[in-house]
């Protein structure tokens, strides 16, 4: 079944096709969301929300893009929304902490389940550095590293040219090196 058939049947409310879409793309959506929000529970919620939106707004999908590209865009948008929500909650929490001081907060270390065992420590440092990147650089880097997308595919998802993606990734690498340098200078001593 090609994309046009899938969309046609999905628009007609065929639940079997919807189940196929979920089964086919759930790992892709979850893995992307996890790379961005770096929290398994949030990534799970985002994955559910993405497919609910697919079900509800399949009629709005313009067939000029690939279905997977559309899914990546929804996932990114939902993940960034989730981050903003968390930041708002954190700001509220900050006020709370001023009035009710508790024990010091420990920096969160993220452990991606797909990383090989001997790379876990280095990957945790890298994920920590990724969190500090500017938004577009972070998204491009996550799509390249975790989803193995080509620069052309990243460009289609982020709606930018391949040259812009090249430059974005180069800047992301430079920034990551600098962040990691600072981190290891503090922690290797």
């Amino acid at each position, binding site marked *: 079944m090609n994309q046009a058939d899938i969309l046609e049947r999905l628009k007609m409310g065929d639940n079997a096709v919807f189940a196929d879409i*979920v*089964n086919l793309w*759930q*790992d892709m959506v979850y893995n992307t969301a996890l790379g961005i929000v770096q929290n398994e529970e949030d990534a799970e919620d985002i994955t559910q929300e993405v497919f609910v939106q697919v079900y509800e707004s399949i009629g709005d999908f313009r067939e000029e893009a690939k279905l997977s590209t559309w899914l990546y865009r929804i996932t990114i948008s939902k993940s960034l929304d989730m981050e903003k929500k968390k930041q708002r909650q954190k700001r509220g929490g900050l006020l709370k902490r001023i009035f009710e001081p508790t024990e010091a907060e420990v920096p969160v270390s993220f452990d991606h389940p797909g990383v090989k065992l001997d790379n876990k420590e*280095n990957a945790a*440092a*890298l994920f920590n*550095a990724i969190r500090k990147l500017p938004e577009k650089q972070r998204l491009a880097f996550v799509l390249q590293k975790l989803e193995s997308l080509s620069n052309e595919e990243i460009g289609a998802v982020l709606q930018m040219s391949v040259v812009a993606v090249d430059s974005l990734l180069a800047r992301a690498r430079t920034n990551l090196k600098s962040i*990691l*340098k600072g981190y290891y200078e503090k922690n290797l001593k």
Partner: protein
Amino acid sequence: MMEHDDIHKKIAASLESLDGVSRATPAPYLLTRINAKLNALEAPNFWSRAGALLSKPKIAGIGMMVFIVMNIFVINSLKKNNTPAALTQGTTNIRYDFAINVSSIYDIENQEP
């Protein structure tokens, strides 16, 4: 110097740590949870239905008109009853109802010798 080299090695190792990473997978029965979410969205409860009904412009407009007409009616009926005689009558009634024996200048004047 040794430390500097170590840091560079660690940076390189970190940047390569995601090479060959496998995809993370969500917890099982994701489809069931999505379907449950969709069903919950499709079956709104009493309050959401009532809210949706009241937020319709026609219903809201009619509700507002009824509210304004009722207010005008109440104000008019109060104006009609708001004469000094009616007020005195009301006060006297209250006085008798609660058996309040208030002495006033009129009481002194009307005292019998």
